Each structure stands twice: as structure tokens, then as C-alpha cells.
């Protein structure tokens, strides 16, 4: 069976690409430290020597729209184009292209459906920065095939937080039951406290540092019980109007497992939002 080589949870900050590729005289003052932290985080994936990446993210009204909105969707295609005109326009992100790992997509869909998760699928999916940002930060050579998994954290009515955790658990089971000798890393990105298009946006730090500290503690310690006891669809409005993206972190806690302490934790307090980086090695840290 396939081996779960690493579980990685991260924020996805669309400004990283521009900040990290700007000439030194034009780079923002926080860029050098940001690059250092990202390169250190990247090493945690490199060391795991993955062959395949399962990428959990959320479409930001690019291909998925309100006339036909899936809650959880698995890409099932040989190839994926990526990034959109408005992401080039606002963030300077490049157009990208990725190979798909179709047999793993098919395995996840068939067995996920049989495990009572009514997953939607797409045979032609153009993916967005929720998946390409972690490729840029963690695997910039973009040389590995992927299985994209999209969650709806964006267009209410949303699934309950516990469903994200449950899906994470199922994804882990399905990766570990995939008849293959490949090493799989599951990478998911979300947000800590975040406000977009509201009065608390683009402040000197994230809109709710207290929530961020608590969230980092939950994730670092795999404290699903504590997290699920406090986080509800309603409660997530308080830290910032885009904080429902935290549920993708909860999904990744489900992949990592109850009380699984992260092997690597780092954060970076930026303007607008806090960056947070976590890695687990379910089968022990690589040598």
C-alpha cells in the first residue's frame, strides 16, 4: 500500500510569489525573513521524498459558482491548468500547469463514496491559488503529480466543521489503502483569522491575534477535541469574515490524527494575516 510520507498544513498567501521574486530594492521589508521561513518549511516536504501530492484547497469563485456549488470536490483529470486572470492581475501569479495522479483520484472518489462521503468530481478543473501557493512555497519545481481536493469554505451554506475533520480522516484512510508503492504527501491550506472585504481587512496584523494563538495551539497539538468544542460555523465569523478557511486546517488535523503533535511548527506575523506552517510525519521523521 501507499505510504503517507507527510501531512502538511499551511496558510496560502497569494502575495508570497511577488514578495519573494521582487528585486531586492523593490522587495517589501518583511520579504527576506518570509523567504527564510518558507525555505525552512519547504525542507520538511523535501525530506519526506514524496512521489504524489494530495492538495486540499478551496476555489475562490473561479470555476465553481453559485449556480452549481459542490461542498467537497475531487479533481479527476490527467492534467490541470492553474491560476486565473484575476490572480495574475491582483497578485502577479504566473499561469501554471500540473500533472494529475488519476488512479489516486479514482481510488479516492470510489472509496470515498463508499465511505458515505458524497464527493463531487471534476474531469476538467482549472485550479487556483489555494493549491498553487503551496506548490510555489513547498515544491516550486512543480514536478509531482497531484490530486486536488476542493472544499467549500466560501459560499454558505457550508458544511459543519466536524465534516471537514471527518473528510480528513477518510482521506488518510484512502491514501493508506491505495494499492501503490508511492509515497504520498497530503498538503492542505487555509487561513487563521482573516477579513476580506470588511472593516477589519489589511490591518497591521491578523484581525484576531487571540484566535490565531489558540488555533496554532490546537493544530500543533492535534487538539481536535478542544478545537471542535469551540469552533462552529457561527463562531468563525467573530475572528474575521473569511475565517471559515480555518476549516481546511481542521481537515488537515483530521488527516494528521487526534492528538498528533506536529513535528514542525512555525508562524510569521504579517500585516493582514498570520502565516502558519505545520508538518507531521505519521510514520516517523525521515532521517
Amino acid at each position: 500500500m501507499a505510504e503517507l510520507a507527510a501531512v502538511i498544513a499551511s496558510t496560502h498567501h497569494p502575495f508570497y510569489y511577488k514578495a519573494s521574486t521582487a528585486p531586492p530594492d523593490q522587495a517589501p521589508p518583511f520579504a527576506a525573513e518570509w523567504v527564510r521561513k518558507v525555505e525552512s518549511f519547504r525542507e520538511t516536504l523535501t525530506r519526506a521524498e514524496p512521489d504524489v501530492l494530495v492538495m486540499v484547497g478551496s476555489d475562490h469563485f473561479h470555476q465553481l459558482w453559485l449556480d452549481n456549488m459542490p461542498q467537497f470536490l475531487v479533481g479527476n483529470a490527467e492534467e490541470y491548468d492553474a491560476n486565473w486572470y484575476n490572480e495574475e492581475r491582483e497578485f502577479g501569479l504566473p499561469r501554471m500547469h500540473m500533472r494529475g495522479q488519476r488512479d489516486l483520484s479514482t481510488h479516492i472518489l470510489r472509496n470515498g463514496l463508499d465511505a458515505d462521503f458524497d464527493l463531487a468530481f471534476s474531469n476538467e478543473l482549472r485550479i487556483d491559488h489555494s493549491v498553487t501557493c503551496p506548490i510555489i512555497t513547498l515544491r516550486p519545481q512543480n514536478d509531482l503529480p497531484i490530486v486536488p481536493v476542493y472544499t467549500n469554505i466560501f459560499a454558505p451554506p457550508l458544511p459543519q466543521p466536524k465534516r471537514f475533520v471527518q473528510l480528513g480522516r477518510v482521506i488518510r484512510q484512502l491514501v493508506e489503502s491505495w494499492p501503490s508503492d508511492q509515497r504520498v504527501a497530503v498538503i492542505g491550506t487555509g487561513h487563521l483569522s482573516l477579513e476580506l472585504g470588511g472593516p477589519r481587512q489589511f490591518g497591521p496584523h491578523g484581525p484576531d491575534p487571540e484566535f490565531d494563538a489558540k488555533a496554532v495551539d490546537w493544530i500543533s497539538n492535534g487538539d481536535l477535541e478542544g478545537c471542535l468544542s469551540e469552533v462552529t460555523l457561527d463562531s468563525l465569523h467573530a475572528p474575521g469574515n473569511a475565517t471559515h478557511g480555518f476549516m481546511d486546517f481542521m481537515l488537515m488535523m483530521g488527516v494528521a490524527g487526534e492528538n498528533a503533535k506536529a513535528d514542525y511548527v512555525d508562524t510569521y506575523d504579517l500585516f493582514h494575516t498570520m502565516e502558519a506552517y505545520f508538518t507531521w510525519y505519521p510514520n516517523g521523521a525521515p532521517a
Partner: protein
Amino acid sequence: MSKYLVNKFLFTVDRDPALVERYRDDPRGTVEWWEAERANVILNCTTTESSTWLRFDDDERDALMTHDYPALFAMGAHPFLTLTLFIAMFERDYDEPLGFQLEYARKLAQFSLPYADITT
């Protein structure tokens, strides 16, 4: 109340560079044209299979025609759609990095929790 239609306007304009410019330059004319010609087009269907029933409420039409993003926020338009499109139209008018984004936050400072429901 047709939050969905307001969102559909923001979504379809935002993804078309020519429409972004047209809406910046002529908001009233663009909204009139869009409501007449585009509001009922189902996005993955041919125009012979369009809807027949979608129209803006008067306050929604007015807010879009006057680029009134605080009003759009108050009526529960999706804040990500509004922000993204308005950055595309107006960030260029500010010299400082994030100048428009911070002005946007200031204009919304009157709002406190709970914000308008964005469920469609």
C-alpha cells in the same frame, strides 16, 4: 432581495478585463446593459436556454450603478467578490501600496458584528 444576482454581476464583470474597464468608466450604462442582456444567462448554457426571472431590486441596482461598496456590504453581497473587483478598478488611483484597500476598510468602519448574512 437578489444577492445571488448581485454576486453574479460582480463575478462575471471581474473575470472579463474589458468589462472591468467598462464598469469603471460607465457604471450606470454597464449595469443597465448587463441586467438587460446578461443577468439571465446561465453561465454554462447556451443563450437559448436562459433564465426568465432574474432582476435586481432597486437598491441593488442603485448600489451597483454608484460603485457603492459599503451599500453592497450592507446588503450581503459576497465581500470577496466586491473587494476583488473594486481593487481591479480603483487600486490604480492610489499611490501608496494598499492605499485603496485601507480606504475601503475605512469606508466600512461603520459596520460591526454581526455583518450582513452572505448566504445565497
